[in-house]
């Protein structure tokens, strides 16, 4: 393939941040189609507009997802990217890899594709960026047969679930996010690969309310670790913090001189529920008032830890703004146990209940959060066979527009207007 002039892109080779332009140019030495990637991108930089056509339905046999079709709208100029489909490869939990595994994947992608990737896509997949239609099946063959790996999701199906690093390297994780993500991904392979839903559906698993995988903002079912009992306090370590011997916030603020650590200002006063105080040199917490926001624990990781009775909150319905505005997930199950021993039974049961209902009543291209908005939260709770509890709302309704069912109202709805008129002249 021809090398193209890229005067605009070249300007992105300077500067301290790693340059994808430099990287692509270097790759072009062995994968000449990278020149066409650079070329078409340069044209976009010049024209200030994309040069990719709308969609394109391609895939591998038997799967409805995992490939996003893409064609250039100037193929004659850049034949190397005439077809430029992406392949979404399911990532392992927490995105740990061995070099052996990755090298094999690189070889495969060099063989069947452009050699360009995203590590990782926004949903969490390994994104292999750009290949021709005729390469898809051979790539898939090798991926499954040689690497024992598989595609992720796209289309109106379950998308590749993702998780925060959790117990494997984080002291705060309230359940095994990796195992939950893995187990559910395995259990729902069919839902991932074969579109059967009204629209896309996402799971994300965070080990604690810090929510390092942004579950509450980006997943239809957000599973976020929490606990039931008391925050565990090491009073000796509290003293070390007060003495300034341990860095606040695990050293996260060490780049600036914020003055001496002040437990009142930095912890007690910032606790959103005001449930902490010092007493006799000890830090006290009224745990019944604590909303487990993590702040105090974040600031004093050596002194405070989540409680020991752990599990997760399950929230439903996050999504991006199209069409009605963005939604965060809504708290539906305040606490469930999360145990690999029972295959996350409580969660699985809930997920399937949500799906059964949504697949029945969800409209085409309606995310579950939108369906919830359409039917109303009270109805959603009822169909989920849950007790309505105040934890599901920030505050009670302020309008008086309550629906009453006929059976709730003494005497029912049927009335005789003649009888009424007998007592009330018109």
């Amino acid at each position: 393939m021809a090398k193209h002039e890229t005067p605009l892109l070249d300007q992105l080779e300077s500067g301290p941040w790693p340059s994808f332009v430099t990287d692509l140019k270097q790759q072009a030495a062995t994968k000449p189609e990278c020149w066409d990637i650079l070329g078409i991108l340069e044209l976009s930089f010049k024209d200030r507009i994309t040069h990719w056509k709308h969609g394109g339905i391609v895939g591998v046999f038997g799967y409805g997802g995992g490939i996003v079709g893409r064609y250039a709208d100037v193929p004659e100029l850049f034949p190397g990217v005439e077809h430029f489909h992406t392949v979404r490869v399911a990532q392992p939990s927490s995105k740990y890899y061995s070099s052996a595994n990755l090298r094999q994947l690189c070889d495969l992608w060099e063989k069947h594709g452009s050699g360009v990737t995203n590590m990782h896509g926004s949903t969490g997949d390994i994104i292999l960026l750009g290949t021709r239609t005729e390469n898809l099946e051979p790539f898939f063959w090798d991926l499954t047969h040689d690497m024992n790996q598989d595609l992720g999701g796209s289309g109106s199906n379950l998308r590749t679930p993702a998780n925060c690093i959790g117990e494997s390297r984080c002291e705060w994780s309230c359940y095994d996010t990796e195992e939950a993500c893995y187990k559910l991904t395995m259990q729902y392979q069919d839902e991932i690969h074969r579109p059967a839903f009204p629209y896309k559906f996402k799971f994300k698993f965070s080990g604690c309310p810090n929510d390092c995988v942004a579950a509450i903002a980006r997943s239809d079912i957000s599973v976020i670790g929490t606990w039931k009992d008391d925050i565990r306090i090491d009073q000796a370590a509290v003293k070390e913090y007060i003495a300034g011997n341990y860095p606040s916030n695990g050293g996260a603020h060490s780049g600036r001189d914020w003055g001496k650590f002040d437990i009142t200002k930095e912890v007690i006063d910032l606790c959103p529920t005001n449930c902490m105080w010092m007493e006799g040199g000890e830090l006290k917490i009224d745990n019944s008032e604590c909303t487990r926001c993590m702040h105090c624990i974040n600031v004093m990781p050596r002194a405070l830890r989540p409680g020991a009775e752990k599990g997760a909150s399950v929230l439903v319905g996050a999504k991006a703004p199209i069409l009605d505005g963005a939604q965060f997930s809504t708290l539906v199950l305040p606490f469930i146990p999360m145990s690999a021993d029972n295959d996350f039974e409580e969660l699985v049961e809930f997920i399937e209940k949500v799906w059964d209902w949504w697949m029945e009543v969800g409209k085409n291209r309606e995310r579950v959060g939108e369906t919830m908005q359409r039917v109303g939260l009270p109805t959603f709770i009822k169909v989920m066979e849950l007790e309505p509890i105040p934890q599901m709302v920030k505050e009670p309704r302020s309008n008086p527009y309550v629906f009453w069912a006929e059976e709730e109202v003494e005497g029912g709805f049927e009335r005789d207007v003649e009888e009424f008129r007998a007592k009330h002249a018109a």
Partner: protein
Amino acid sequence: MGYNPDKPMDGRISDLGPPHYEQFFPPVIKANKGKWLWHEILQPGVLMHKSETGDEVYTVRCGTARLITVNFIREICDIADKHCDGFMRWTTRNNVEFMVDSKDKVQPLLDDLKSRGNKFPVGGTGAGVTNIVHTQGWVHCHTPATDASGVVKAVMDELFDYFTSMTLPAQVRIALACCLNMCGAVHASDIAILGIHRKPPMIDHKRITGVCELPLAIASCPLGAVKPAKAEVDGKEIKTVKVTVERCMFCGNCYTMCPAMPLADPEGDGIAILVGGKVSNAKSAPKFSKLVIPFLPNTTPRWPETVEAVKKILEAYAKDAKKYERVGEWAERIGWEKFFEKCDIPFTEKSIDDYRLAYNTWRTTTQFKYTSHIK
């Protein structure tokens, strides 16, 4: 062997799912999973986690462009092989992490990374700016209103010092999405860079038949701006659609449903800046990002207006906010009128909500601060 196009279903394997994560754990992770007690950020980009077994794991975090080649991944593998028993991971924000099991292995690793030019900047931890979550842009997608990787490179070059240091009041999460679909989930970021269209779709009557299901195109518009219509194509009347341009707010959903309705345009497209979103439940509940700059042009290749705007906001915040205060918490504490003043951003009616739940954003109290906005 390999794929045989004549017998596509023969020997086909499917539904394998991802590889089990455990096989990719560095030994120290495998041995200590679930046993970690606390952590400390030793320097920007370097974390230490301490286990109840006494073990320690040292993590070195490096920024990446996310758009990377197999060449580059192989270089990462080389580093992992050399220092980390051949293991590594990526974070949820596209940084790569190298882990070693003792402190003395950290410096050699850092030295090695440094020796590789600007490829592996170490940082992205604590109260700084970490990698920008972003999307495809002009590298791959059909609906972008701006590029992704190019803008990110330009912004991160400018904010580089914030990536390699921890001097901000709190973590600052920047994200970019190249269109309103918001694959970059910018709706909950401290600073969000959002590609927006500003011209209504064109209708390609020649192409609409066949590629579009007209009822779906019509139903796709949240504001009912897409209406059935007729047009003449090659002397024949065809069924098509028209757009009431005054009702269009350029969401692009019609184009998603109907390829014959492109909206992208060099002049029309550009970037909006939103601020003050957050995801974590720490202190305050998650917040949506709010639109503060409605439009900046796509000035390739380095988007100076966007870079400048992000920097200005970040610096005003760095100067004024309290320790632990996220951008949105700061803006709410000082009041949005002060936010605009302190960031020196002109306020426009475009920041005033007029969509579905707009009334909730109106100020229904006498509480306000005097700023230069009040003449």
